[in-house]
């Protein structure tokens, strides 16, 4: 592989009405890694992900995809490399699960590039990956929140991207489905950036970036970064790292600051 990073942010800043929603973020995405972004509500996680996806142009700084400035790439070129599962994408259309996943093939198709067997394979594989293959004919409106989230991930999977961006994909899911989604995402052979709220989920990432008021305040391996001092500073809670009695894996215990 060349040394060009898959995705690179250089001083990326997004200003709306004089306020920096994201401010001077520098980041080089390593190939194959899973990068977690955590931070309090309103710290700029969603805005940063949208910028990484090329949906919001940076007001200052630059974002490069495989060495090329994002601003100079066509949308289709971006979508072939990078897929995004945003926080609240919903529809009132009466589409089926398969229809929704087929949308993922959009960047690979065109008026003169019709649907082919390869597209069917990609859709089939994506449905299988999220365990929705048996529900392919179900109506979108009949799905639960967790099932919808899985379909969104399947759509992104069918897009065959190198980079997958996920904005709080475990929100509103029960504990079983939270783990199922995280397992699923970590098994996918792509580079992943995932916005998270749960610190235990963040422990499963290769690297973690902590955001506060639009700034990146820490970036590194989870156990190096998520220290009690930092958690206390950013989230205003008392945190203690303890070992699981059975297997010694790290666990957090939280307490409200006195």
């Amino acid at each position, binding site marked *: 592989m060349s040394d060009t990073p898959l995705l690179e942010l250089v001083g990326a800043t997004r200003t709306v009405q004089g306020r920096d929603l994201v401010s001077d973020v520098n980041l080089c995405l390593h190939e194959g890694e899973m990068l977690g972004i955590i931070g309090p509500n309103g710290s700029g996680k969603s805005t940063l992900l949208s910028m990484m996806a*090329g949906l919001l142009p940076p007001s200052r700084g630059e974002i490069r995809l495989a060495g090329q400035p994002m601003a100079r790439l066509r949308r289709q070129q971006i979508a072939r490399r990078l*897929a995004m599962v945003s926080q609240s994408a919903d529809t009132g259309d009466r589409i089926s699960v398969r229809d929704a996943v087929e949308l993922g093939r959009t960047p690979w198709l065109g008026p003169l590039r019709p649907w082919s067997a390869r597209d*069917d394979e990609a859709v089939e594989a994506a449905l299988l990956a999220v365990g929705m293959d048996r529900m392919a004919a179900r109506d979108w409106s009949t799905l639960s929140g967790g099932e919808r989230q899985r379909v969104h991930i399947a759509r992104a999977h069918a897009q065959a991207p190198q980079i997958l961006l996920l904005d709080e994909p475990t929100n509103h899911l029960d504990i079983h489905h939270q783990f199922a989604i995280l397992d699923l995402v970590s098994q996918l052979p792509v580079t992943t950036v995932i916005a998270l709220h749960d610190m235990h989920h963040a422990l499963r990432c290769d690297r973690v970036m902590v955001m506060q008021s639009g700034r990146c305040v820490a970036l590194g391996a989870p156990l190096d970064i998520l220290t009690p001092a930092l958690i206390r500073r950013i989230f205003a809670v008392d945190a203690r790292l303890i070992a699981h009695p059975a297997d010694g894996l790290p666990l957090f215990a939280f307490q409200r600051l006195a």
Partner: protein
Amino acid sequence: MRRGAAVRGAGWLWLAPALLAAALLFGTAVGETRIPLSTVVAVLASKTGLTAAVPDSVDASVIWHYRLSRATVAACGGASLALSGLVLQALLRNALAEPYLLGISAGASTGAVAVAVAGFGAGVISMSAGAFAGALVAFGLVAILARAARGTGVQTTGIIILAGIAGSQMFNATTALIIAQSASAEQARGIMFWLLGNLSGVRWPDIRLALPVALLGLGVALWHVRTLDAFTFGADSAAALGIDVRRARVVLIGTAALATAVVVSIAGAIGFVGLVVPHAMRFLVGVRHARLVPATALAGAVFLVLSDVVSRIVIPGQVLPIGVITALVGAPAFAVVMVRGRRR
């Protein structure tokens, strides 16, 4: 091997030309004067060169110059309006979007009337150009108004429709003002009749504009079926799927405005076709645009041909404006969609 769901089950499409031909024949055969079907077929066959020419009769003239031209323009106009509604609904993510409710038709009327009264040549082409300018200005104003009203607490679905209603009122008032100011009594009566949506004045030359524009609209929509699908989860999601959202909006909404403007300049503001037909077709063929676009074009064409027939025969001795018929069907449909409408 499976094919994309969008393509599956498109076998009915070969029926489209047959259905369209049947509707045109029906539109040509039915009218106030009873003309036997055999005569109708004989006249059509000879005029299209299939059989030797028959001597011109009053019947032949009615069939060829009056009814067939009218039915053909109705078909083109119906397809144009229905496709415009479909495209606007998909791009604006709004179940109630259509050229009439968004004020595009009203803007086109104002443009066309301004040209007609000011008398810039007043041909179909210059009236269409005026209507197109009016349609674009109207949509621009409605879009700006809707954007400005965002975050004022009105539900998102409601905003653009409210803006469209405000725009319609404003442009209709402007039209009335232009007529009151500058039109002669004779002109005014003609314009008022035309404004309600009317195909009475249609003759063959109108087809030279109506047909190419309907085909252009169909072509553009077919070219963009995947783009239209990609808006299912909203504009951001479409962008993430590789769609150049701004370009898609300019091309597709521009085409819808052009198609609407041409129909308005020929036949006045015909409402509700763009609302009723796409929703009916979603029930029949589903929401994927590879099937929805051709189905909507066909159904729009057939719907307006039939509406025109009804407008000619429902009250003996009197031709109702076609807009009255489409509104009679459309307004209840509007209510149903609004009550059921869960789409954002």
